[in-house]
């Protein structure tokens, strides 16, 4: 039983039929046999009712036969249901197995495969092409067996009635079996084209979605639309002709099967006239023949499904019929643990089109040394790094890692020993922590059992966060977290203690950067609603999102003469924002200073139009709610397009006192007011420490605040906790809630956490600011020097001065190499790169 299973892309469609839940398949055949029996029983009962019960006038026999008939019909239905259910189980099992195995296979395919393949195509192969094949696997055994057996049973019955007539009327079927495959072949060709055209379309959609920035940037809607529309039209044509053929097959089949009663009439009628056939026998014959139709139709449909599945399945598997370049895991040994000596000998890399990307490259780097690869763009420096990192399969020469040929190492050998950070690193959706541990988890997973001992400790993680400089970002994510009421009591208490020591040690110093929650002042960096309630809702209907519909609150606004001015404020805000941003793309960055979110702009545009038309400036109820909601969000410190009128400011301050009095009397448990001694659950941790909000200020002020906060958190022994909270930050789809620099820092941290003996950085710091770049450079030059062999593809020359070796590449070759000072003194290529052509 332990023969090597075929890889998924080599398997035939039929192999799935044979291997998917064989026990269930046997059970299915058994059930089918019973079903066929239950199909013949009614015929026999029909005969017996006429011949025995009615003829002999025996009521008891009539009842018995009718009873048996009924039982047969009911069990037929029940069994059919059971068959369908089992079919579905087999089909779904097969589909899941196909999807999983194919997906697993696709992930291992070499990178150059994906350069030529649109993501949309892979998606459509896995989602829309395979289900047809899966369905077929479900019916592959049951449908033919059921129908062939049924057909045989009825055919035998026919021959038993009249051999000559049976032979003539059944002669139709072989004819059909000759004609149909001819048509089907043509339909299959069309189907193949349909699959290809559908794929091309899916690929196109995928491309447009990935490249949407470029399309918007160039306003290239028309170009893209023309391309897509052309594809859709082509697909339409193919589908139309394909449908025509499949329908033709059905029609022709119908036609021939309808011919058979005609033959029976003709021949049977003639025989009956001659007295060679009883009239009753002919009628029996006709009704039996009628029963042939359904199983035959099902067989033909099955045939079509088979052909469709066959075409789609083969097309899919052909496409992915490639072997991974490297074994995933080493066979019969543990993964190597290398020292980190790298030697490149006469390396060349030629593309399929015959372009020499790398040509006869030789260099060597000793364990713990570092090498910078520089050169003009297109000189092959990234390609060289990728060949050394096993991301591309080089076509000539050798890359030796501790004397072992890299091309022959397994993926596991590489990932255990080499950390690779690419130019535009990919961040997966999930938390920062998950992304940080991605490499470590991947390594730990397959090495069975050794899961925990390879995982870095929290101290390790924090060290790496600090080394790569993403620490500050994670800290900010942590500080910006809003704790939830139910499970963070202990945390809240610690934040409160931190608040106390903040007030003590930094309160005065940072006072100008923070707007404290002062009961007697208007807060310009808090929203109108926060200014009014000056508290946190304890019940849902007093949450700020629900307040615009809360009748109690609305009544309060009327009483305190706030309703009208707030409505006007809402109108002004909506008008201004629609006027300014009305034609802008829904980009988060452009909406940062707007009280209206990108997706709401359209709604507000309509509200503005309607309120302009509304007589006496009284918008409809629904619009009033929206405008009030907008006004309540207004935060003058951030939203600068409208000024907060002084009179309204005073009214709101008055309103704060009134609201507190009113709600304390009417509903004392609805709201808790901001108090210096209490944690505020609606605010972030940082705002809680401040007991206020940060004002907008310049970068040096930001720096100052960061330092004070870190200082404070260390003092309170609270830093690690906040970092842990920060690491729970969800980075968004492809990490789009992080900046380019944060993504790069995260990916460097991800590689460093693995502590690899070899580290390859492919322009890994290009998106970083000066300080971060210098920090990482220092880290590599000091702490990692001697521990890891470093190959760094560098775009900016100011960081390469301390490298052991600098190799300057030019059109796929190494132009010169040596230390920075040597090369500059030589006034060759590096000099040219640094100072320009002389």
């Amino acid at each position, binding site marked *: 039983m332990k023969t090597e299973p075929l890889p998924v892309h080599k398997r035939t469609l039929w192999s799935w039929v044979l291997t998917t839940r064989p026990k269930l398949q046997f059970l299915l055949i058994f059930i089918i046999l019973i079903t066929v029996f239950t199909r013949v029983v009614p015929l026999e009962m029909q005969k017996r009712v006429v011949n025995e019960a009615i003829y002999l006038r025996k009521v008891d026999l009539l009842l018995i036969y009718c009873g048996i008939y009924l039982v047969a019909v009911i069990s037929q239905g029940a069994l059919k249901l059971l068959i369908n259910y089992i079919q579905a189980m087999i089909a779904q099992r097969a589909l899941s197995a196909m999807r999983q195995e194919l997906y697993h296979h696709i992930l291992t395919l070499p990178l150059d495969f994906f350069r030529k393949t649109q993501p949309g195509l892979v998606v459509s192969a896995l989602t829309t092409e395979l289900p047809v094949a899966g369905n077929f696997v479900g019916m592959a055994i049951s449908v033919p067996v059921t129908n062939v057996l049924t057909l045989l049973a009825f055919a035998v019955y026919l021959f038993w009635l009249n051999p000559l007539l049976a032979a003539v009327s059944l002669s139709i079927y072989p004819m059909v079996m000759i004609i149909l495959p001819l048509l089907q072949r043509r339909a299959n060709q069309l189907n193949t084209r349909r699959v290809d055209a559908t794929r091309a379309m899916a690929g196109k959609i995928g491309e447009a979605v990935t490249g949407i920035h470029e399309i*918007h*940037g160039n*306003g290239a809607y028309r170009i893209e639309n023309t391309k897509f529309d052309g594809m859709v039209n082509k697909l339409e044509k193919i589908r139309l002709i394909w449908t025509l053929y499949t329908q033709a097959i059905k029609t022709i089949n119908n036609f021939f099967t309808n011919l058979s009663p005609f033959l029976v009439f003709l021949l049977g009628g003639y025989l009956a006239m001659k007295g060679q056939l009883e009239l009753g026998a002919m009628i029996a014959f006709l009704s039996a023949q009628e029963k042939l139709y359904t199983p035959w139709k099902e067989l033909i449909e099955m045939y079509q499904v088979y052909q469709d599945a066959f075409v789609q399945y083969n097309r899919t598997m052909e496409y992915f019929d490639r072997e991974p370049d490297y074994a995933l895991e080493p066979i019969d040994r543990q993964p190597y643990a290398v020292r980190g000596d790298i030697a490149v000998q006469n390396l060349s890399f030629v593309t399929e089109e015959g372009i020499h990307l790398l040509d006869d490259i030789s260099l060597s780097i000793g364990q713990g040394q570092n090498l910078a690869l520089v050169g003009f763009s297109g000189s092959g420096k990234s390609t060289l790094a990728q060949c050394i990192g096993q991301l591309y399969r080089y076509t000539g020469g050798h890359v030796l890692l501790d004397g072992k040929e890299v091309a022959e190492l397994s993926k596991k050998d590489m990932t255990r020993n080499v950390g690779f950070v690419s130019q535009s690193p990919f961040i997966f959706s999930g938390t920062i922590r998950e992304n940080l541990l991605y490499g470590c988890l991947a390594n730990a997973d397959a090495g069975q059992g050794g899961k925990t001992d390879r995982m870095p400790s929290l101290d390790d993680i924090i060290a790496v966060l600090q080394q790569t400089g993403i620490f500050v970002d994670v800290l900010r994510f942590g500080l910006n977290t809003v704790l939830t009421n139910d499970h963070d009591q202990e945390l809240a208490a610690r934040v409160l203690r931190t608040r106390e020591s903040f007030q003590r040690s930094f309160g005065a110093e940072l006072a100008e950067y923070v707007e404290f929650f002062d009961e007697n002042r208007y807060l310009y960096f808090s929203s109108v609603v926060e200014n009014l309630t000056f508290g946190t809702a304890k019940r849902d209907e007093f949450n700020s999102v629900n307040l615009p519909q809360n009748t109690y609150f609305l009544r309060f606004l009327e009483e305190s003469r706030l309703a*009208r*001015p707030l409505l*006007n404020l809402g*109108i*002004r805000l909506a*008008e*201004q924002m629609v*006027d*300014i*941003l009305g*034609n*802008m*793309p829904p*980009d988060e*960055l*452009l909406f940062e*200073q*707007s009280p209206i979110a990108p997706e709401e702009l359209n709604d507000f545009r309509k509200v503005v139009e309607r309120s302009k038309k509304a007589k*006496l*400036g009284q918008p409809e109820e629904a619009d009033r709610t929206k405008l009030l909601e907008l006004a309540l969000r207004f935060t003058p410190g951030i939203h*600068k*397009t*409208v*000024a*907060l*009128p*002084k*009179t309204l400011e005073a009214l709101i301050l008055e309103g704060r006192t009134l609201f507190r009095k009113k709600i304390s009397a009417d509903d004392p448990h609805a709201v808790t007011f901001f108090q210096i001694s209490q944690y505020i659950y609606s605010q972030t941790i940082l705002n809680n420490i401040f007991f206020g909000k940060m004002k*907008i*200020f*310049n970068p*040096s002020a930001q720096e100052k605040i960061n330092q004070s906060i870190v200082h404070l958190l260390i003092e309170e022994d609270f830093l690690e906790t906040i970092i842990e909270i920060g690491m729970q930050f969800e980075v968004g789809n492809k990490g789009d809630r992080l900046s380019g620099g944060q993504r790069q820092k995260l990916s460097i941290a991800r590689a460093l956490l693995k502590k690899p003996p070899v580290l390859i950085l492919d322009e890994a710091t290009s998106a970083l*600011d*000066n300080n971060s770049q210098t920090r990482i450079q220092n880290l590599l030059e000091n702490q990692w020097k001697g521990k890891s062999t470093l190959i760094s593809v560098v775009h900016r020359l100011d960081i390469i001065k301390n490298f052991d070796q600098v190799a300057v590449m030019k059109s796929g070759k190494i132009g010169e190499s040596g230390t920075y000072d040597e090369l500059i003194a030589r006034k060759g290529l590096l000099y040219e790169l640094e100072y320009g052509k002389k």
Partner: protein
Amino acid sequence: MNSNTEKNNDATTCEYTENLNILRQVDFFSALPLEAAKVLAYLCHRIHFKAGDFLFKQDDEDEQAYYIISGSARLFKIIADREQVVRDYEEGEFLGRLALMGAMRRLFSLRARTDMTCLTISREKFTKALERFPDVMPKLVKVIVENVYGWEKRFMAYRAVDCSDCFKELGVSLV
């Protein structure tokens, strides 16, 4: 243009309107259509600096332009660890046009001499905002060209005569 029914007795004009007025007076933005200027006026930030604060430092990748609303700042370059003063910038001056067009590291440092308020806009926001106004770019390029050309012309008129070393490096307008 908002004709709100209720009388607005408040004299408070909002920052956005003030920003818009300022931008209309700066050569770089006065060429823009009103729609684009409005978006930029909305995207601007006012930043306060205290005397001694740096607006940017040499080698920083500082991706923004500054309009000085109030106060003054000193531009200098560090050569051999010594500060060499280049010039002062005063109220009403606008600097950093090139940083809005493309990435570069600052070759100078700018430090506030007095407490300052500046109107700043970052390249990221500037570029995003102008994506919707593709015909604006040529006008901006024209302003940049005039600035560079004007600089060299002035330089030749005043300096190139008495500084023969400078003469060899002339030709910025030919880049």
